[in-house]
């Protein structure tokens, strides 16, 4: 007699992937129909931002085999760069915590946000490149903590715990994307671009080297591939995409503070990537959608008091992660397991 875990492991991969895809998409459609257009737009915007993060992190974790828990740091760098450069200069900030805000337009700040995330990743990556496996996880953990400390304590630039307000929406000339639907379309376009870039990477020769690095770093090095260069390149690219997500997030919420970039968010992000499946772009999209549905859906559970929703989400995701590791370590549609 076969047990449930055995059955799950032995179930043909194509079937599981199909069922998982239909289930998550069906759940999304049902939820959106139930909640109506306004909530759907919000949900999809949150999805787009998390999906950019998940797809970009999967490049590093799933395709290259570097388990980074510091991705949220690059997300924060993108968000803070956007906030500092683009926050409305005329906004009446708290006098004791006022910071210089040049008030740049969104599209002037965006490339700086992306580039700065990449630049920091380059510096960090040069140091991290000497580490592998468990040690790499630990140093990336350290990076997330350092980044958070900077956001919180560098008050002359970040306003610390007060956060930064009045971050503008994107604008094309006089056309400001201040409507939720317009912003959603913009976020989805950004997601599509990120997915396209990731797809081009993973289907190229470069992507094949990443797979080989994940499988056996030493074996690929003896063929003359400079492993550290490949790892550094994908690390920087991934960080730049996280920077883009951060800039979008800052602009969408119009306010950020360090609480959006705590280590827990990094763990949630890892959970999304594993939930959807490692080394698959589709899996990251699916994982992000499932996560957003779970996160937002729990608001509407009648037996759950509103004050416990936040904690309950974390518990559910934690339990889900443990169950996945037990029964489906490659995630819903994954090609590889940790």
């Amino acid at each position, binding site marked *: 007699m076969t047990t449930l875990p055995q059955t799950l492991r032995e179930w043909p991969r194509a079937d599981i992937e199909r069922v998982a895809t239909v289930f998550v998409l069906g759940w999304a459609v049902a939820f959106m129909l139930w909640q109506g257009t306004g909530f759907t737009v919000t949900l999809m915007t949150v999805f787009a931002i998390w999906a950019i993060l998940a797809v970009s992190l999967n490049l590093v974790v799933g395709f290259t085999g570097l388990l980074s828990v510091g991705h949220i740091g690059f997300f924060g760098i993108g968000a803070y760069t956007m906030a500092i450069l683009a926050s409305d200069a005329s906004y009446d900030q708290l006098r004791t915590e006022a910071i210089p805000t040049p008030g740049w337009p969104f599209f002037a700040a965006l490339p700086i946000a992306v580039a700065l995330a990449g630049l920091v990743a380059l510096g960090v990556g040069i140091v991290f490149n000497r580490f592998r496996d468990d040690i790499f996880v630990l140093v990336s953990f350290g990076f997330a903590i350092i980044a958070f400390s900077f956001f919180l304590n560098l008050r002359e630039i970040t306003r610390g715990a007060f956060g930064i307000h009045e971050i503008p929406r994107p604008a094309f000339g006089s056309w400001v994307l201040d409507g939720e639907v317009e912003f959603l379309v913009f976020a989805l376009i950004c997601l599509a671009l990120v997915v396209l870039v990731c797809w081009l990477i993973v289907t190229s020769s470069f992507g094949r080297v990443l797979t080989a690095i994940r499988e056996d770093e030493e074996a690929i090095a003896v*063929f003359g591939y400079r492993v550290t260069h490949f790892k550094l390149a994908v690390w920087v690219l991934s960080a730049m995409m996280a920077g883009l997500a951060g800039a979008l997030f800052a602009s969408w919420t119009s306010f950020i503070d360090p609480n959006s970039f705590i280590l827990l968010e990094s763990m949630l992000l890892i959970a999304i990537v594993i939930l959807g499946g490692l080394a698959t772009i589709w899996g990251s999209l699916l994982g992000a959608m499932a996560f957003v549905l779970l996160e937002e859906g729990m608001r509407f559970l009648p037996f759950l008091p509103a004050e416990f929703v936040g904690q309950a989400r974390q518990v559910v995701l934690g339990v889900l992660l443990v169950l996945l590791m037990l029964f489906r370590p490659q995630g819903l549609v994954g090609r590889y397991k940790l």
Partner: protein
Amino acid sequence: MTASNDATLELTDIAVHYGAVRALDGVSLGIREGEAVAVMGPNGAGKSTVLKAIMGLAPVVAGAVYWRGHRLEAATHEIVKEGICFVPQGRRVFTHLTIEENLEMGCLFLGDEAEKRRRLESVIELFPILHEKRRDMASQMSGGQQQMLAIGRGLMGSPDLLLLDEPTLGLAPIVVGEVFQKVREISDRLDTTIMIVEHNIKGVLGIVDRAYVLDKGRVVHEGTPASIRETNILTDVFLGRVQPEGEDGDPFPLAQAGGERTGF
């Protein structure tokens, strides 16, 4: 010090230390163009370290490696460009890639597509099984087939010198013979210079032109397969009967039993 006139590759007084462990201690050996040479010895003798030292993968603390008259000091990726390919122990194929993709990893960024195809055809001619299964994932292959793939992947780099580290390790006896036959075929048909580290003494002596015997990080014997068979050197090293360097400075007393002195 310069390389010998007729040596394509020469190692002179190479010492490799892993912390306090002396993996190689003054190893000198060489290989001529087109030769197939074996490096043999018991576990821990330093056989694989010799190959790693050539490839820049081991911490060489003394001595030098000469390739075609010039000293090899560069990093591994530069050494590969010199036409030297290392097929590491344990096959180490990429199981999440197809057989064809694995082969292509041997020359992925070679710009000349025609040359890439020519190399692929040459490897397939040597290992027809790889062509039949080219769309399969490498994980679906048997151990012997994976070893063929590992050697084929190395040949895709069109090396002048092929370094093979224990290619028959863990393979069924019936497959071992096939692997040795293929190695000889590479040497004969492609005229590739081969240095092979092996545990299977009988098998490897049947396919090489010369062999070195290592023990405790030092070369204790060098000669043709016939001359090695005539001595007891292999029995002695495998039974631990080769003495460490004596007070008279003669490091290898057992080599006097009929074998040739080391040196190239």
